[in-house]
């Protein structure tokens, strides 16, 4: 009996949370309903990411590379101007004063504080958004094309081709990716192109097995046989008849993959196998701030929060897209 009432309770909660739109237009319950039904907050975070990435030069209050030693480890201005800080940091008062500024308190210039060489953390985080955006989107789409091609070819042709490609995937899963990335960085020197390439290597494998399975079942269906009887070429069958049926799966896997790619990029940059140092990738910022985590926590906390929020938004959206498009894929991770 207890379970029955519980079931009714949860049913009641659900029906209360989905009121009919007309009567409750501006009530808090309706707002809550919208927030639950549509990914508003993740959407806002994503828009912020894209805007920050595209307009980084216009938005960043200071240069992201230029150093100003007076603001070395300067605390964030959002916590007040904190005059005691300047009296405790003797070197910032005397030795490294810019000529002509003697006797003037430089104040805290940076909203989110300065890093260990006096760069603006906020500007660096904003520019980091651009790096994340470029790296992840290029890697995501290239990996998608590669993975989908391999999956579809493997499923459609079967036989020796299938066997070879699937063994390739197996091998790829057994290679410790981080070590491979580190060796690659030593050989080819860290650069933006290299990390994009490495992330493509990471991105493609997720599609292959699922798409292969789907193609295997789709190609048995009558419409494919009919297309073949009607004289359609293999190319046409794949693009006109198979791919439209795979779009949902591809989209779901891709949207669940974005967060992982951002995290992977940050981890690679953190261990020094990613974006080379002066470029403000979020992982680089955290790696640089690591030694100063005690004196200047803002160097690590703010970029880390940025990674967290963006990945959270993408993961949330990924779940939402999956539930919307294809609840069968619930087991996908």
């Amino acid at each position, binding site marked *: 009996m207890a379970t029955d009432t519980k079931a009714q309770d949860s049913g009641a909660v659900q029906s209360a949370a989905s009121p009919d739109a007309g009567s409750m237009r501006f009530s808090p319950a309706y707002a809550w309903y919208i927030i639950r039904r549509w990914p508003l907050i993740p959407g806002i975070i994503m828009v912020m990411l894209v805007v920050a990435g595209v307009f980084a030069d216009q938005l960043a209050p200071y240069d992201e590379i230029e150093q100003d030693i007076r603001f070395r480890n300067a605390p964030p201005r959002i916590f007040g101007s904190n005059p005691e800080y300047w009296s405790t940091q003797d070197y910032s008062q005397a030795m490294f004063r810019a000529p002509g500024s003697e006797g003037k308190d430089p104040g805290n210039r940076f909203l989110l504080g300065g890093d260990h060489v006096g760069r603006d953390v906020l500007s660096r985080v904003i520019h980091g958004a651009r790096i994340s955006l470029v790296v992840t989107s290029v890697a995501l789409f290239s990996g998608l094309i590669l993975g989908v091609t391999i999956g579809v070819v493997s499923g459609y042709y079967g036989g020796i081709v299938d066997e070879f490609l699937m*063994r390739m995937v197996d091998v790829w*899963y*057994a290679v*410790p990716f981080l070590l491979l990335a580190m060796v690659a960085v030593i*050989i080819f020197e860290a650069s933006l192109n290299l990390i994009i390439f490495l992330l493509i290597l990471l991105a493609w494998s997720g599609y292959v097995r699922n798409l292969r399975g789907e193609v295997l079942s789709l190609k048995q269906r009558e419409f494919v046989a009919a297309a073949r009887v009607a004289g359609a070429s293999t190319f046409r069958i794949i693009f006109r008849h198979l791919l439209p049926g795979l779009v949902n799966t591809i989209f779901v896997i891709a949207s669940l993959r974005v967060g992982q790619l951002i995290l992977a990029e940050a*981890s690679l940059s953190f261990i020094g196998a990613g974006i080379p140092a002066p470029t403000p990738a979020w992982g680089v910022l955290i790696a640089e701030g690591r030694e100063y985590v005690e004196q200047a926590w803002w160097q690590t906390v703010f970029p880390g929060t940025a*990674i967290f929020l963006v*990945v*959270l938004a993408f993961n949330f959206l990924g779940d939402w897209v999956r539930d919307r498009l294809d609840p069968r894929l619930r087991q996908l991770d």
Partner: protein
Amino acid sequence: MRKFLIRRFLAGILSVLAATAIVFGLSRAAGDPLLLYAKPGGYGVTPEQEQALKEKLRLDRPLVIQYLLWVTDLLQGDFGRTLLAEQLVTKVVGEKMGATVQLAVAAWVLATIMGVPLGVLSAVLRGSIWDYMGRAYALVGQSLPTFWLGLMLILIFNKRLDWLPFGTRGTAEAFFFSWENLRYFVMPSFAIAWGAAAVYLRLTRSAMLEVLDSEFVKLARSKGVGQNKIIWKHAFRNALIPPLTVSSLMMAGLITGSVVIEAVFSWPGLGRLAIQAVQDNDFPILTATVLFFATVFVTVNFVTDVLYAVIDPRIRY
């Protein structure tokens, strides 16, 4: 079934060989390992000595032959010696392996304790505040960068509160399960377990929901079986299959994924050893660690397949 297992076994060996071959080849492309000792033509290095070193390290042979010789030695139990310290690779890797495996086991236990009960709670009280909190955690758990979480733990619990130490694995003299020793495990294992627990939670929750909706649970309900008994005896045991099978894969992931977190916590394990080996281009260590990681991964995959068939008799390959 047997045919399937044999095929998987052979494919697994192939995977390990290919993985080591890739890294072996790449590490030779990363510049001359002899640079560790001396620059060619540098002070005190005669061409004869250089030649002798090359021959000793087999660098004068073609890459394929080098790799094949390495595999032959391996089959005879000879992993070679490290370049820099000239120690036995088995000894160096063996020492560090323990630390990595211990950390992975600690994280794995923690993740199971955190994730599975939360998943059950979340499924049983579906739609309640607990469910929302569980699902929120599932999202947050997978979105926090592990290395950043580790850093924040250090900032809060070591630098600010000074509760927990880090930087080594604990003292060798102390009893292993003493607090003296275990406190070194708390932060790193929690940082790793955080994400893994979220995966467990998701899996347990969805499996539990599915089972609670099944015919045999409905039958048990209609017979008047108590709620506790339904949850723990009828539902939980059957819902355990996905988390259980994933748990072995998870263990492998925790071991191979240790590289980053070991760097954060200065944990004296394989990950740090591997990073050092990459920087020194000490290829015997590097290939041995890759061999270890790949073997763990492939073995665990194989065991998972077997386990799956044993636990769930419906599965036939």
